[in-house]
Structures are given as structure tokens and as C-alpha cells.
């Protein structure tokens, strides 16, 4: 338990710790990365073709691990399925369980349909264990007829179409888990889903830009300039929208008659000043907006433009994380007594400590690395280059 200032109720603690920051972070990244693959699969945005399948795999990697921090946080993880078996209709968390399951299913289906030609190809070409593995993935159909290819294309479009509302609702429901709690003034806003959705898309695009740059660096290939520019434009648009909605939230709270919110906001500023003003606002929002405007409006070499895009993308991911950190943990700092605050001292080891959460946050990246080995998303690129 952290240090205390003033008077707090005896049972008040910071009950939601780092895993509950990592959980919406992973969910947001998963829904944000989907956006890029949707633009290609659904709207035929050719500029994003190079990253679209990669983004799809990233989405799958992140959504697969999004519920792990929740499990770690639960007092009884073995009862986790109660949330699916006896969901309470009025609980945003219970609804989230179902939407998460549906979204995970959609992503798995989409990955399967998109990569089926490759899976079949590997199943036919490889030997031994590898062959068995890919054969299982083919679900017993080891050919792709032209007719099937045409049908699959339609199905991919249908899934991508379904995934748009599902992803919106998914990240929105994470926001609603917080937004429906009137007892915590910094969370209580029914439009919190909107902030989550917009931040999620910005963060997702940001992370994909970074990962794409890392992957290309690893392969020794050049970044696709048109693709980077297109992603930067989307990034800027969603960053501005996020800022706008956050600002509206600030206005309606700050100028409303709400002493609870005023107290909580003061507490956040004094306790989490650096991560709120320094990281979330200046480094995470103002800096990338300036950088993105510069790289989009000014003439510069492709190399510099890519470097700026990657830099601002890293900052946007920082923005997403600090936004969630300040919201989830910062929101719990102010006591319900309005006469004191809790102070947060994260522990390093332990179930809800930094180490476990860091490992969980890295897991999707490891899975993504494995996935890119199993289902190379740059296949076409190789052929085109060769």
C-alpha cells in the first residue's frame, strides 16, 4: 500500500494496478492495427497494401494476449469462464467478454482465409512435422481452386466488413468498463468509448509503423515511402480527433459543477504531473502532431520522412500507454472522501508487479514474430522484388 495523504476511507486501495493498464493497451493495439488491414481489405487503399497482412497478424497477436493481464489480475482466474457462462447484462465487463470472444473468432477466421493459399502451399511443399502442422491448419482441404479463391475473397470482405463494428464496440466497451463507473470521477463519462476507440486506432497505426520499420530493417529492405506517408496521414488524423474528444471531455468536466472531478483532477496533476503533462500531453501528443505535420507538409528526403514517421509513431504509442496509465491508476489516486489521496508505488515482482506486466506486454510481439515465421506476410513482396 502506498503512502497516504489526508483522510481516505479505510478500505480504499489502488485495486486496479498495472495489469489493468496493460489489458486495455493490448486491446486498443489489437483494434487499432485492424484498421490498417481493413483499409486495404475493404476499401482497397493500395498505399497500405505492404502492411495490411502484417497488421492483420499483429491484430491477431495482440488480441490473443489481451485477456491475459485480466486473468493475472483476477483473484480466482480459474473462475474466469463464469463471465461467459453467467454474464450479467448490465455489466460492461460481462458484455466485453462476449465481444472479445467474437472478435477473436473473427480475427482467426480472417487470418485463416487470407493466408489459406500459403498454408496449402506450405502443406504441399514441406515434409515431416512441418507438413503435419500445416496440414492441420488447412483443416483437411489441401487445394485452392479458382472458384474457392473467388469465394474466399468475398468472405474476407465480409469478415473485414463485420470487423469494423466489432472492433469499434470492442475498444469502446473497454472504455465503457471505466465510463459507467460514476464513483470514480475521472472515469465517469458515457462517451469514454469514443476516446478509447480513437486513441486505439492512433496507437495501433503507430505501433504498426514502428514494427513495419523494424521488420524491414531486419530484412534489409527499404520502407515503402507511399505507405509510410499514408500511415502518417491517418496517424495525424486520429491523433487530432483523440485530442479533440479529450478536450471536450476536459471542458465539460472542468466547467461543470463537479467537486469530485475537480479534486480528482488536481490529485492527478499533483501526483502524476510528469506522466500526465510531460508524457501524455507534450511528448505523446504535441510532439507527434508537430512532427507529423512537418513530414506531411514539408519537402524532405524519404529517409528523413520515414525517420520522423517512426519517431512520432513511438511517441503516439507512448501517448496511448500513458493515457491509459493516467486514466486507470491516476483515476484511483483521489479518495472518495475528497480529503486525501492514495499514492501509487508499483511493485517490481509479484502478481501485479512491473515484471509480470512487462512480460505480458512483450508476449504479443513474440507471438507476432512467430506468426510472421509461420505465415510470412511479405510473401508477395518477395516475389515482386525477385
Amino acid at each position, binding site marked *: 500500500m502506498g503512502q*497516504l495523504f489526508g*483522510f*481516505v*476511507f*479505510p*478500505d*480504499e*486501495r489502488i*485495486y*486496479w494496478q498495472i495489469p489493468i493498464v496493460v489489458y486495455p493497451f493490448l486491446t486498443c493495439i489489437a483494434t487499432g492495427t485492424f484498421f490498417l488491414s481493413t483499409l486495404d481489405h475493404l476499401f482497397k487503399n493500395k498505399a497500405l497494401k505492404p502492411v495490411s497482412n502484417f497488421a492483420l497478424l499483429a491484430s491477431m497477436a495482440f488480441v490473443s494476449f489481451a485477456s491475459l493481464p*485480466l486473468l493475472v*489480475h*483476477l*483473484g*480466482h*482466474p480459474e*473462475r*474466469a469462464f*463464469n*463471465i461467459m*457462462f*453467467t*454474464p*450479467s447484462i*448490465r*455489466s*460492461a*465487463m*460481462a458484455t466485453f*467478454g462476449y465481444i472479445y470472444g467474437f472478435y477473436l473468432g473473427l480475427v482467426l477466421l480472417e487470418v485463416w482465409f487470407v493466408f489459406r493459399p500459403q498454408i496449402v502451399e506450405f502443406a504441399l511443399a514441406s515434409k515431416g512435422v512441418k507438413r503435419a502442422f500445416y496440414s492441420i491448419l488447412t483443416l483437411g482441404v489441401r487445394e485452392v481452386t479458382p472458384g474457392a479463391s473467388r469465394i474466399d475473397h468475398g468472405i474476407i470482405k465480409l469478415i473485414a466488413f463485420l470487423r469494423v463494428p466489432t472492433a469499434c464496440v470492442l475498444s469502446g466497451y473497454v472504455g465503457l*468498463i471505466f465510463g*459507467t*463507473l*460514476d*464513483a*470514480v470521477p475521472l472515469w465517469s463519462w458515457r462517451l469514454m468509448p469514443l476516446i478509447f476507440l480513437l486513441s486505439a486506432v492512433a496507437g495501433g497505426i503507430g505501433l504498426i509503423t514502428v514494427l513495419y520499420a523494424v521488420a524491414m530493417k531486419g530484412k534489409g529492405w527499404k520502407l515503402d515511402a507511399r505507405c509510410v506517408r499514408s500511415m502518417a496521414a491517418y496517424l495525424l488524423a486520429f491523433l487530432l480527433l483523440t485530442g479533440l474528444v479529450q478536450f471536450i471531455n476536459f471542458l465539460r468536466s472542468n466547467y461543470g459543477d463537479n467537486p469530485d472531478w475537480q479534486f480528482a483532477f488536481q490529485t492527478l496533476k499533483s501526483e502524476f504531473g510528469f506522466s500526465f503533462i510531460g508524457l501524455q500531453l507534450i511528448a505523446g501528443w504535441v510532439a507527434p502532431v508537430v512532427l507529423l505535420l512537418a513530414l506531411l507538409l514539408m519537402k524532405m528526403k524519404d529517409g528523413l520522412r520515414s525517420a520522423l514517421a517512426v519517431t512520432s509513431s513511438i511517441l503516439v504509442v507512448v501517448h496511448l500507454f500513458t493515457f491509459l496509465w493516467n486514466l486507470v491508476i491516476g483515476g*484511483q489516486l483521489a*479518495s*472518495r*472522501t*475528497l*480529503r486525501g489521496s492514495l499514492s501509487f508505488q508499483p511493485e517490481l515482482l509479484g502478481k501485479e508487479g512491473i515484471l509480470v506486466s512487462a512480460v505480458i506486454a512483450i508476449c504479443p510481439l513474440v507471438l507476432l514474430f512467430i506468426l510472421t515465421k509461420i505465415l510470412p506476410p511479405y510473401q508477395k513482396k518477395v516475389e515482386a522484388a525477385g
Partner: protein
Amino acid sequence: MRVNRRDFLRYACLIVPAGVVPLSRRLIGATAESSAKQKYSLEGHKYAFIVDSTRCIGCGECVRSCNMENKVPEGFVRTWVERYTTTKSGKVIVDSTYDVWRQRKKAERFNFEELKSVPAADISKAFFLPKLCNHCANPPCVPVCPVGATYQSPEGVVLTDPNYCFGCGYCIQACPYGVRFKNPITHTADKCTWCYHRIVKGLLPACVEICPTGARQFGDAAIAGSPIAQVLESAKLHVLRKDFGTNPKVYYIELNPEVR
């Protein structure tokens, strides 16, 4: 603090025995005789809890007996007593029985500490205020539970199910009164139950039973003419944080605006 006549009369009533206090103590007992013979029915109860903060002397017996009765793990409480001290300059200082525990002194006792920060001459007003779960008629903690592990019993008592709760802590966040906590032994949500296991047996909640001054009163308002029904009808009652629309069933006789 000068003792005026009104104050004197008020406390005279707690000092003079066989006044209101023993009466209310027997209020459940009377129904117990009849209902203990029959099986307890979940229907037809309207429990209410009345806190008369003017009678609280801050002995902390309620907290001790609650912790014993409900085996509340160390570091947490299901009920507590707050002390509001107003200085002549208008500053409000709040502390609770719990602060002594927090400083790891006399762990079992839950006494109030000497208020060292304020000289006695500076104090204009001071009072104690017991707190516990409000068993809201419209509880914010119940609908948020994703699995149905916290609920309102048919009598309107808000209970938890430690054998079904998976410990997400959502209900703890939803409570505006901060009365819920995560039990570090069961790893599930825990809270005051109004000693549900006692009241169904016709007994009073432990804190009411032990209170030496009758600052805490409990009863079934569905029994016409019962003392609690009379108080509910006649007295000026207040609830905590009315702005949340939770409709608490813990009523306070006299509630100062500085109380949150």
C-alpha cells in the same frame, strides 16, 4: 465545548438506562422468539439501519466486534468510525478508528488517537460518525458484477458470493462509499452484510449489539409499530451522498454537510 441544555438532555437519555436503547435492543429479540420457531422467510422484510451520530462516543467497540464476528482480515474493516473536528478557523480535520491500526499501534484496539495537530482551544466542533455499507436500494455495485457474484437478497440486503466471485474488483470501484474491499485471504470482494447470518436468526448485527450507547440501531420496518418503523416515520433522516441516487437504507439522524 460547552454543554448546553439540549446536549445534556440528549446524553442524559443515553446515560439513563431503560431508555430508547434497551428497547431497540429487544426489538429484534421480540420477533426472534416467534420467527425462530418458524422457518425464516425471505419475504416480507424491510430492514433499515439508523445511525444516531449524536450518541456515538467513539469507543470503537463496533469495529472490534465486527472484525471478530465476521473474521475480517487484518488491514481491512467492514465498518468504521470517523471523527470530524472543525477548528475555529473553519478547517475540517477527519480521522478514523482505523488510523491507529494503520500506524501499527495496539493493533487489536481500534481506538481513536489523541488529536495532536490541533490545540484543544482551537476546536469549535467535533463529532464521531459511524460508517458501514449502506445497503442501497439502488446499489451501483450489483449491476456491474460481470458474473452475478454480488446481489441484493430478496430482503434487500446486498451480499457477496465468495464461492462464485472471481475477484475482478469492479464492484469495489463502483461503490461511492468505499465500503468494499478485496479480501486478501479469499481473494474475493468482501463487505458488510448487516450480519445477515445473525439477522436471519433474529439477532442484531454485531455492531448494533455491542454499541454501548445505541448510536447504531437496526430493525425490520415491515413490523408495524416497531421502534425502527416509528423512527423512519417520524425522525428527520439523512443519507450519505444523496447525489449518487443510490437510495441508501442506512439513515443518519443529524448529518453535517462536511460528512462525505
